[in-house]
């Protein structure tokens, strides 16, 4: 038994079997339970250590050879796998409430398996190939074969596909820079290639126009899943580049570039969100700002930045899961998610309205919610190195908060004497309630995550040390 088989091949194989099941509840329970099982095994079963179970002795090897290359999951990555599959379980359990289980559970599990493969493959720059395969699988997840695809889906496919050649070529050039560190021209070329690749993959300004389009066209729950898993794993993959190449890690220009791009994402995400009149587009800009926060964390001294980066991940996962589920429930009851159409929705879908507001507040660093502790630490650390950077981050957060209060005003703006007419199903109420409690728990007791995250920086050889 080896780790890549358990956390890459088994989920993909299981997902293929799930393609034949159409029952929402069965799919949701099977997919969610499977993901939780994988998360628990990752957290508690040691890799490369013999375990005694009764009369049997079991050892999980860390590597698997495929066509002369290696898929490697070292013991230090156990907590990361637990985090990834644990967060994926959130979406799978919520799939029944969003009525998207036949698509998100099998395809989501396959995409999660491929994204884990992208972290595991050696040489690590081949990750771009696995990410591209995940992107291709995301298309049938996003669109139904019975509905003409919109511009957002096509742009998503184009932009994400264009990232792969840049990353692969950058990986090859970086090896050349390692061999001759004095070649500044080659270093600049490889950094430019790498920058372009990650700009496409992470939907960095101005290459993020597909995100709001996708949120308008596709199911918010499915788009939310992709807006969580793709940037999260890509940022970990990007941190891997920094960890491996010392000249890249120690380059002051890269730190400035990461900070500037992160701030640009936070500020544009926040300000654009403040002026939107569509609930889906507001979430899209919220997700863009989330990516900005992660980039800002990467730009800090790695001893501070890497723990903050890992602290941002569960908050992003839970926040986007609650936000996207809430929007899915709201979308079920209105023609579009434009402000004009969702006026007074709080009286029809109160839990979804509350979930949307709380999740958006969490993204906006509102105290007591999941996003607050990581953003506070980030803001404080950023202020130590750049006061102007901290001010710009504040402007972005004000923009996000403005969008939340505008949304709240619109959904609570019912005509006078309008009666309450609840249209949420018990499953939707239960899942949204659970998610909102989770947002408060992560906000009030962020130290509970410390147990899971204390070993995470060990997955990097140099970063966070």
């Amino acid at each position, binding site marked *: 038994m080896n780790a890549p088989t358990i956390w890459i091949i088994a989920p993909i194989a299981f997902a293929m079997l799930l393609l034949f099941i159409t029952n929402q509840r069965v799919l949701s329970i099977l997919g969610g339970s499977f993901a939780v099982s994988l998360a628990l095994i990752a957290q508690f079963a040691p890799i490369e250590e013999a375990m005694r179970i009764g009369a049997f002795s079991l050892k999980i090897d860390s590597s698997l050879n*495929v*066509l*002369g*290359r290696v898929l490697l999951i070292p013991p230090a990555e156990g907590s990361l796998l637990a985090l990834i599959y644990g967060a994926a379980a959130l979406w799978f359990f919520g799939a029944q409430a969003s009525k998207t289980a036949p698509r998100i559970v099998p395809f989501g599990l396959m995409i999660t398996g491929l994204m884990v493969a992208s972290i595991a493959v050696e040489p690590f720059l*081949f990750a771009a*190939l*696995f990410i*591209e*395969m995940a992107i*291709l*699988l995301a*298309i*049938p997840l996003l*669109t*139904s*074969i*019975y*509905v*003409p*695809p919109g*511009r957002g*889906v*096509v742009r998503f*496919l*184009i932009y994400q*596909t*264009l990232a*792969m*050649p840049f990353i*692969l*070529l950058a990986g*090859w*050039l970086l090896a050349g820079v390692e061999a001759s560190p004095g070649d500044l021209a*080659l270093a600049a*070329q490889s950094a430019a290639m790498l920058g372009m690749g990650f700009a496409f993959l992470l939907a960095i300004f101005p290459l993020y126009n597909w995100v709001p389009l996708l949120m308008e066209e596709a199911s918010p729950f499915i788009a939310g899943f992709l807006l969580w898993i793709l940037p999260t794993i890509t940022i970990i993959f990007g941190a891997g580049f920094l960890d491996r190449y010392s000249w890249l890690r120690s380059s002051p220009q890269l730190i400035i570039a990461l900070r500037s791009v992160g701030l640009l994402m936070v500020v544009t995400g926040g300000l654009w969100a403040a002026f939107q009149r569509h609930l889906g587009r507001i979430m899209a800009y919220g997700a863009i700002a989330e990516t900005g926060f992660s980039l800002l964390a990467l730009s800090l001294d790695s001893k501070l930045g890497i723990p903050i980066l890992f602290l941002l991940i569960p908050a992003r996962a839970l926040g986007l899961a609650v936000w996207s589920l809430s929007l899915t429930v709201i979308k079920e009851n209105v023609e579009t998610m434009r402000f004009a159409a969702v006026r007074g929705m709080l009286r029809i879908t109160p839990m979804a309205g509350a979930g949307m507001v709380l999740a958006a507040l969490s993204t906006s660093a509102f105290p007591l919610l999941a996003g607050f502790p990581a953003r506070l630490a980030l803001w404080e650390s950023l202020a130590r190195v750049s006061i102007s950077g901290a001010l710009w981050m504040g402007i972005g957060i004000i923009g996000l908060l403005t969008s939340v209060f505008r949304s709240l005003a619109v959904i609570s703006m019912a005509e006078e004497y309008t009666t309450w007419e609840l249209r949420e199903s018990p499953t939707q109420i239960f899942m949204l309630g659970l998610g909102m409690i989770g947002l408060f728990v992560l906000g009030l007791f962020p130290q509970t995550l410390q147990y899971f995250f204390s070993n995470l920086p060990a997955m990097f050889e140099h970063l966070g040390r």
Partner: protein
Amino acid sequence: MALTLAWIAVVTILLTSVGLLVARDWRWSITLLAIQYIAMFVLALQHWPLGMASVKVVAGWMAAVILGMTRSGLSNGNLAEENIWPRGRLFRLFAAGIVVIIVAGVTPSVDTIMADAGFAVTTGSLLLVGMGLLHLGITAHILRVTIGLMTVLTGFEILYSTVEGSVLVAALLAVINLGLALVGSYLLIAASSKGAEPA
């Protein structure tokens, strides 16, 4: 002999990629795409053994067949080209000319960066990347977008074959090409649907 063949492949790539830009009949597009993969095979042979280079052409042809078979089964109604500027042949030829000039200008420096891959190989791959990007820039039509992406990837694969000889990478790139064709077919079928999902 090998060099002559490589330059013939470059000329073929120029003709097919420009042809893909100006062709309005999907049958021509698919045929030109298939020919483009033969040219790619010749250029990949400069650095790869026959077996591995063959994977490229076989995967490419399969991708072309997938797209062709899907398109042949659909009516023209919902798949008509978008009626927006720029769509004139003259404009496309002009834009292709600019791409050719840019490629001619950057080929020597890219060739140096790519460990002296060979002028023919570098020119061919850059032509494909440039024409593919141009294609993506002037259309939102699903079949054309898919062909544009496949053209860009073909160009990249030629260039990457000069520095990477891994079997796993060749296999994964073949899977991605086939996957792209399948996704293109899926989107083509979706684009031709009336928008009513069966219960």
